């Protein structure tokens, strides 16, 4: 049997979901026999490949770069998993939403900056009006709430998907878990 092509991606999140994924510890070795990790912040691939079977997506869609990435991921992935509260309900990144982008920029780059106060116009991707859950931007196949979802919860989800079943995530995790 050929290995499943698995990817992970990190949008507007703290990487806590990736850390929780790594917390499955020795089960990573067992997983390594079943999957090929084709793209991830944890490996070196620079371009998101075609024909990915499963992508675990951490983080909210908060800036133009996030949006471009998730559109590409969706187009090239069979099963897209919203991993963690930021991806599922935009969580902490969404706490800026009530204030509006201009106020957020001012707070970060003018009021709280000691040197060279200016709002960046290049290199840093422009913020979208709101930090949004992934499913508001593209179709999501599996939702795994939790901040972060537990290692056991993530292992359960990945195992079920590799076995060709859709996981029942509500029994394993919850918002804010």
């Amino acid at each position, binding site marked *: 049997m050929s290995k499943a092509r698995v990817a992970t991606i990190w949008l507007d999140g703290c990487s806590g979901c990736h850390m929780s994924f790594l917390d499955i510890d020795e089960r990573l070795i067992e997983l390594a026999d079943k999957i090929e990790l084709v793209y991830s912040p944890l490996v070196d691939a620079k371009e998101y490949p075609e024909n990915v079977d499963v992508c675990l997506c951490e983080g909210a869609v908060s800036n133009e770069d996030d949006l471009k990435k998730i559109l590409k991921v969706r187009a090239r992935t069979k099963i897209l998993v*919203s991993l963690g*509260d930021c991806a*599922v*309900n*935009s*969580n*902490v990144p*969404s*706490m800026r*939403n*009530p*204030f509006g982008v201009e106020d957020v920029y001012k707070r970060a780059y003018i009021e709280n900056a000691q040197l060279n106060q200016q709002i960046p116009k290049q290199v840093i991707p422009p913020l979208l009006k*709101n930090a949004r*859950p992934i*499913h*508001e931007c593209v179709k*999501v196949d599996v*939702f*795994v*709430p939790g*901040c972060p979802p537990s290692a056991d919860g993530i292992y359960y989800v990945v195992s079920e998907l590799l076995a060709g079943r859709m996981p029942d*995530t*509500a029994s394993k995790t*919850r*918002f*804010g878990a």
Partner: protein
Amino acid sequence: MNPSAQKVPSVKTLQINGKDVSAREDQTLLDVARENGVFIPTLCNLDGLTPIGACRLCLVEVKGARRLLPACITQIQDNMEVFTETETLVKYRKMILELLFAERNHVCSVCVSNGHCELQAMAQKLGLDHIRYPYLYPKLAVDASHDRFAVDHNRCILCQRCVRVCDEIEGAHTWDVQGRGTASLVITDLNQPWGTSESCTSCGKCVQVCPTGTLFEKGRASGEMTKREFLPYLTLMREERV
């Protein structure tokens, strides 16, 4: 009044999900369902407070009724045929919860009540894993003017437990609701900072009955706000005194 002169409530029989049950005529559908081990979800309901049917989670189908009825404020009738787990109800319950989440800024991970929140627990119980409706992201205030307590409107589901416990149990009626629809807010006295309220006795009952992290004790960090269940005891003691 001589207790023996009181009218003895008669017994009525009805069906819940096809099962025959009997109950006193003055009981609500919710009471009877719970007595018989039938699960009906609720958020605004709390034993010891007058039910008001605010959250609509307890809606049930009653044969012959043209609309869905809130179980917490529907008195039983003879030969009622009640259904609590129909496809429509399961769908609506999820919708109601999703709308509650979409209406304010519920960020469970950083909430004082994370892990002890009735809204969060209900979402998991009803299998809610994401919100299909667009979030409103309203800009809402936090009032920390009271010495011991604070109110964060971002987390309020307008269940009005605080309003009722303050009025019915403490007798102060410090809390009330202003506005309409999604613009409604719980307020203290004449919509003034809680710390300046003259009617508030600082008893903390409102904080203890809040189902979410809206009302909390100051100094609590994420997940640290736990509640005590004091109402059944107070209610019992007062009934014995009458």
